[in-house]
C-alpha cells in the first residue's frame, strides 16, 4: 500500500501518471467531440477557401460529405460492372461509401419504382432508361441538377463535351437537366468483311442496297449455312427499335406534335413491309430472336450482316467469337434524298439521376460527375461507349474499339423513341402489331390501323 502511494507521488512529481494521461486524453476527446462541428467549420472554411480558388463546390472530390453512404442502383450491363469495380477509388478520395446494386432490367424497373414511388429515400442514384424520363422526371421523382452544374468545376464536368443529342435524349426533360448519361446505345450495321470481299460488295448505304446485298449473299451462301442478314424480330422492345431505324428514315414517327397518332402513314406501312421483305434473306429463326439470339447468330458466323446495337461489338471481336477479325461495323442504312442519305439510327441509353427523396443529393451529384469525367470515360472505354464527344472521336480509342466511329455516327444521325409515360403501353401494342405483320397474321394496313386506334386511346386517357 505504502509502496503504491510513493509510486504515484513520484509519478506526479516527474510528470503525468498513466491515470492522469488517460484522464486528459478522455477530456480532450470529449471536448473535440463537443466542439468538433465548430472546429470542422474552420476545416471546411479552409477547404472552401481552397475550393474558392478553383471556384467549385463539386468536381474536385472534396471530403465535404465524408461518412455518408450512397445507394446506387444500376442496370446489368458491362459499364455498370466497370464502375462498380472502380467505386472504391471514389470512397478513398471522398470518404463517401458507395453501395452499387446491379439488377437486370425488369428487376431494376420494379425496385426503383417501389423506392421512388414510396418515397423511401432508399436509393440515392437511380438508373433511368431514356424511355422512362417522362415518368421519372415528369412525375417529380428526380432532382433537377441545373444548380449543381453551376457549382461544379467546369474543367472537370465539361458539360458541353457531352453530345447534345444524347443529353437531350437521356438526361433532359422539358428543357431541364436531370443527371448525366451513363451507358449509351445506338443502332449500327455489322457485316462480315470476308464475305463482302469474296463477292466484291460494299457496305450498303440505303435500305434498297441492304435488301440487294442480303439477297445476293443469301442466294450464294445459304447453302453454307450463312444467311444474308439477321435481326431481332421477336415480338418485343427490340423489334420496335429495329423498326424505328427504317420508319424514321422514311420520315415517319408514332405521333405528331399534337399527340395525334400517325401509324397509318405511308412511312409506317412502307417501313414494316420493308422489314417483312427482308425475311426471306434472313436466318430461319429470325422471328423468334431477341438481342442474345441475334448476336449469337452473327457471332457464330451464321449470318453475313446484323442490324444490331453497338454494344454487341465486344462479343464479336472477343476471344470466343467465331467471326473474330472478320467483322466491321458501319452506320445503319438510310434513305437517299437529294444526293444525301438520311439516316435515323435508333438510340437509347441511360441517365444517372438523383432521387428527389434522397438525403445525400450533393454527395450523389459528386459521384455522378466522377463517374462521367473524360478520364473515367477513357478508363471505362472497354466496357462500351460513353457519351462524350472527346472520347467517341478519340483516334486512339477508335482504333482499339471498332464500334466507336459507327456509334459516333449513330448519335449524330439519330432518332429516339417517345419518352412519355404512356410509351411503355404503346410500345407493347406496337410490338404486337409489328409482330403480327411480320408473321403474316394481318396485313400491314389493317394491323397498323388497329395500332393507331389503340395509340389514340392511350394518348388521350
Amino acid at each position: 500500500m505504502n509502496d503504491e502511494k510513493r509510486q504515484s507521488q513520484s509519478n506526479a512529481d516527474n510528470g503525468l501518471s498513466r491515470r492522469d494521461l488517460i484522464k486528459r486524453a478522455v477530456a480532450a476527446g470529449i471536448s473535440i467531440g463537443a466542439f468538433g462541428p465548430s472546429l470542422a467549420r474552420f476545416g471546411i472554411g479552409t477547404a472552401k477557401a481552397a475550393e474558392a480558388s478553383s471556384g467549385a463546390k463539386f468536381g474536385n472530390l472534396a471530403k465535404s460529405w465524408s461518412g455518408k453512404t450512397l445507394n446506387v442502383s444500376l442496370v446489368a450491363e458491362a459499364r455498370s460492372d466497370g464502375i462498380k469495380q472502380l467505386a472504391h477509388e471514389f470512397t478513398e478520395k471522398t470518404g463517401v461509401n458507395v453501395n452499387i446494386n446491379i439488377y437486370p432490367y425488369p428487376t431494376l424497373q420494379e425496385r426503383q419504382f417501389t423506392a421512388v414511388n414510396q418515397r423511401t429515400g432508399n436509393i440515392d442514384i437511380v438508373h433511368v432508361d431514356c424511355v422512362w424520363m417522362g415518368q421519372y422526371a415528369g412525375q417529380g421523382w428526380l432532382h433537377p441538377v441545373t444548380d449543381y452544374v453551376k457549382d461544379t468545376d467546369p474543367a472537370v464536368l465539361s458539360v458541353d463535351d457531352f453530345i447534345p443529342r444524347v443529353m437531350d435524349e437521356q438526361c433532359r426533360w422539358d428543357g431541364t437537366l436531370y443527371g448525366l448519361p451513363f451507358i449509351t446505345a445506338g443502332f449500327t450495321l455489322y457485316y462480315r468483311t470476308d464475305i463482302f470481299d469474296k463477292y466484291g460488295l460494299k457496305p450498303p448505304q440505303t435500305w434498297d442496297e441492304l435488301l440487294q446485298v442480303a439477297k445476293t449473299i443469301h442466294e450464294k451462301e445459304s447453302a453454307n449455312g450463312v444467311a444474308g442478314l439477321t435481326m431481332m424480330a421477336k415480338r418485343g422492345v427490340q423489334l420496335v427499335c429495329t423498326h424505328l431505324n427504317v420508319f424514321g428514315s422514311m420520315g415517319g414517327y408514332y405521333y405528331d406534335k399534337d399527340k395525334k397518332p400517325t401509324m397509318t402513314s405511308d412511312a409506317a406501312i412502307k417501313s414494316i413491309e420493308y422489314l417483312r421483305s427482308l425475311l426471306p434473306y434472313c436466318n430461319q429463326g429470325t422471328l423468334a430472336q431477341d438481342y442474345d439470339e441475334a448476336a449469337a447468330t452473327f457471332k457464330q458466323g451464321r449470318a453475313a450482316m446484323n442490324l444490331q446495337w453497338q454494344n454487341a461489338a465486344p462479343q464479336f471481336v472477343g476471344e470466343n467469337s467465331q467471326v473474330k477479325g472478320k467483322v466491321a461495323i458501319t452506320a445503319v442504312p438510310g434513305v437517299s434524298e437529294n444526293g444525301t442519305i438520311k439516316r435515323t439510327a435508333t438510340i437509347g441509353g441511360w441517365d444517372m439521376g438523383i432521387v428527389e427523396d434522397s438525403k445525400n443529393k450533393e454527395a450523389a451529384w459528386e459521384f455522378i460527375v466522377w463517374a462521367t469525367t473524360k478520364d473515367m470515360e477513357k478508363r471505362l472505354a472497354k466496357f462500351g461507349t460513353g457519351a462524350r464527344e472527346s472520347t467517341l472521336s478519340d483516334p486512339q480509342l477508335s482504333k482499339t474499339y471498332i464500334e466507336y466511329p459507327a456509334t459516333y455516327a449513330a448519335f449524330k444521325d439519330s432518332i429516339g423513341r417517345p419518352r412519355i409515360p404512356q410509351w411503355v403501353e404503346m410500345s407493347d401494342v406496337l410490338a404486337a402489331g409489328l409482330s403480327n405483320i411480320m408473321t403474316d397474321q394481318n396485313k400491314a394496313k389493317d394491323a397498323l390501323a388497329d395500332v393507331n386506334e389503340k395509340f389514340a386511346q392511350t394518348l388521350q386517357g
Partner: protein
Amino acid sequence: MAVPIGTLTNSVVRRRDPLSRLRKWLHSNPATVMLGPAIVVLLVFTIFPSIYSLALSFQDWNMQARNSHWVFQGLKYYQRVLTDPRALQAFCVTGIFITGSVLSEIVFGLLIALLLDQQRRGTGITRTAILLPMMTTPVVVGLIWRLMFNADIGWINFVLRALHLPGLDWLGSPHTALLSIGIADVWEWTPFVAIILLAALKAMPMEPTEAARVDGAGPFQIFRLLVLPYLRPAIGVCVLLRVIDSVKSFDLFYVLTGGGPGTATEVIGLYTYKQGFNFFKLNYAAALSYSTLILVVIFANIAIFSGLFRQTR
C-alpha cells in the same frame, strides 16, 4: 419423480410470475401455438393481398403520380374486361391452351401410370426420374426449351433435319408457337398426373380384376370396364388441379415467346402481368385477376357437381 404439472407450477408461480404464466398458456393452447405462425403467414401473404387487390379492382389509383389516392369507380374495370378485345382474346388463347395441354397430360399421365404400375423392380429410380421435370424450376424449363426450339441451332430441328424432315420455326411461327409451349408444359406436368394416377392404381382392389380375368375378360375390357371407372375421381382431381394451375400459366409464356408472335400466345396471366407491372395499371390488373378467378370457380363447380368424376359403383 412423477410430479403432476399443476402442483409444480403452483409452487413456482410466486417466484417468477410472467414467464411461467406464459409457459402455462403455451402448454394449454397447443393448437394456437402450432397453427399460429402458419395463420399469420397466411394472413399476411394470402388473405391481406387478396382483399387489398379486390378493393383495388373497384378503384382508380394512379400509382405513378406522387400524390395520388384511391377514387371509387364501381364496376368500371370489370366492364373493361368484358369489352377489351385483347383481354377476351387472352381468355380464348388460355382456353385453347388449357384444353390441349390438360387433355394431353391426362392421356400421357395415365399411360405412364399404367406402365409404372406393372413395374416390379427399380421402382424407386424410375419414380425419381419421372418426377424430375416437375421439380425443375419453371423458368429453367422455359430457357432450356427455348434453346431446343431454336429454329437454326435447336436440338429438335437438328433431329428433324437428320431425319430429312424440314425444320420448323417453332417459336416464331403463329401456327406452331402455342403448340411449342404446350409441348413444354406437357413435358413439365405429365409426371404430376402420372404420380397421382399411379397412387390411385396402387390402391385399387385386386379382387374384381382377378374375378374378371377368371371370367375371360381381355386386358382392354378390364381397363375400360374396371380400371377407368375406378380412376374417375383421381382423374377428376388431376383435371381440376391442372386446369387451376394452367389458368395461371405465366413463366413458360414469358420466357418462350413473350406473348408473340403477334398475340398468338398472349394468355391471361401474361396480359394481367403486363397491365399490372409494365403499365402500372394495377386496378385493371386486379379486375382481370378476379375475372379469371370467377371463371375458374365456375369451371370447378361445373366439374365437381356434374358428376363426371364421381366414382361409379
